[in-house]
């Protein structure tokens, strides 16, 4: 068997094994099982039963995640440009960036609700806060890691500061930026769901996956909770995929990490 077809068959095999073990544990649990560990087919039933709710919750969460993530990309980029200018600027702003990152979301959530009210605005801001740090740190690192000789080359050609930044430092920072982007892309849906859990619209209107988690857990609908987890996971994969795709689009032609090797 070729190694290529093996690479398709093996994951299917582990998946089947995993599901087999799942059913076996359910069998061992006996009567308690129905509550503790819903089986895959029960989760699919929950999907059918709560389809509309799950779909609109996923859409709401996606909206918060996309807007928060997009804002984080744009603003972190501008912020990283400012941070990259001099060590003095970095030294004076970094500690506050750390404070932002160190403050747990569950502490910020009530404050945000106080300021902007529950709902999409709060969810977006929480997503933004979670994505902002990895993006800023990576992009800044990229902007200040430009090859010294290239900087000298530009200086010898008497390049302006703007030419140095946009023709040299920004493209050279792209691999770092995309490292941050891939991390942030996986964090964005998690941020939106966590944000929604604490600051989603609990007033009876449109909620996201976080809010739905509260609803289903209060109703002891465990199969529906598993379905919510599956939807969250799918959203996470979608975002991660977009992050990886964007990185590939911009880097695959030239960056060493995409070079083809024999192995």
């Amino acid at each position, binding site marked *: 068997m070729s190694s290529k077809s093996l690479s398709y068959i093996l994951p299917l095999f582990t998946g089947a094994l995993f599901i087999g073990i799942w059913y076996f544990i359910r069998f061992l649990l006996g009567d308690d099982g129905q509550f503790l560990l819903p089986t895959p087919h029960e989760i699919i039933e929950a999907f059918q039963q709560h389809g509309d709710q799950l779909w609109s919750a996923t859409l709401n969460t996606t909206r918060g995640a996309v807007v928060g993530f997009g804002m984080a990309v744009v603003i972190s980029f501008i912020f990283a440009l400012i941070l990259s200018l001099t060590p003095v600027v970095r030294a004076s702003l970094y500690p506050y960036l750390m404070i932002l990152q160190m403050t747990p979301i569950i502490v910020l959530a009530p404050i945000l609700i106080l300021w902007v009210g529950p709902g999409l605005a709060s969810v977006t801001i929480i997503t933004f806060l979670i994505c902002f740090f990895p993006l800023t740190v990576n992009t800044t690192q990229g902007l200040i890691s430009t090859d010294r000789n290239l900087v*000298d080359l530009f200086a010898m050609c008497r390049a302006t500061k703007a030419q140095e930044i946009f023709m040299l430092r920004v493209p050279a920072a792209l691999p770092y930026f995309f490292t941050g982007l891939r991390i942030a892309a996986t964090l964005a849906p998690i941020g939106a769901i966590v944000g929604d859990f604490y600051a989603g619209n609990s007033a009876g209107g449109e909620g996201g996956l976080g809010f739905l988690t509260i609803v289903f857990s209060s109703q002891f609908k465990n199969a529906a909770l598993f379905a919510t987890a599956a939807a969250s996971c799918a959203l996470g994969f979608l975002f991660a995929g977009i992050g990886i795709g964007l990185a590939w689009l911009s880097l695959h032609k030239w960056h060493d990490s995409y070079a083809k090797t024999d192995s």
Partner: protein
Amino acid sequence: MPSPIPIVKFDEVEKRYGDGPLILDRISFDALRGDFISLIGPSGCGKSTILKLISGLNPISGGEATVESISPRNAAEELAFVFQEPTLLPWLSVQRNVEVPLKLRGVDSGRRAETARKSLELVGLGSRANYYPRQLSGGQKMRVSIARALSLSPKILLLDEPFGALDEMTRDHLNEELLAIRDQKAWTAFFVTHSVAEAVFLSNRIFVLSANPGRLHREVVVDLPYPRTDATRQSEAYQKLVAEVTRLLRSVEDDQR
């Protein structure tokens, strides 16, 4: 007959970085148009620093330096630099890499493309214009780097140990190519190297430097005729010069122990 005006003149030039130790101590020389000068000496003798001073990238700390009778800082148009590493922008094609200095000088895109194409042909890489640097070998990358420097049509070419990382065969080939291109373009060259053989093969003058602080220890005149070929390397005169420079270099290094 009045003596010709030197293209680069150093008069008692000193260099230190900030409050640091003296890097270069009273360096004086006149470089004439068409000279090919190699700088050789132990690590820390400030060979690369001399190139940076000529380029105007770093200011001198004492003495006087002129390029084309003006301060190096204002003479940027006259020179081009080839670094130890190829120093290419990996996200740009070979063609666009060669165009970078021209773009920085505001040359319009049509003339840029034309000049870059000619430059690449000169180094034998006309067919690789659309490649990305990672698709090239070490020697090819260095050729692109040289093409980029040549695209500026410099009067002075500063080369900071450009072939140090290449294998000997490739290095020999590139040395011959470099001289062949120089036949057409007639720039003045300053060439930093660790290889005595390379220095003798390329230069008409070799500056042997000593370290801590960097001083001009001795100048060796290489009176082998150009054009130089592989046959030059076999000649007795060449081998005698290599032996002489090697001995000088060794005595400089022994003095430092």
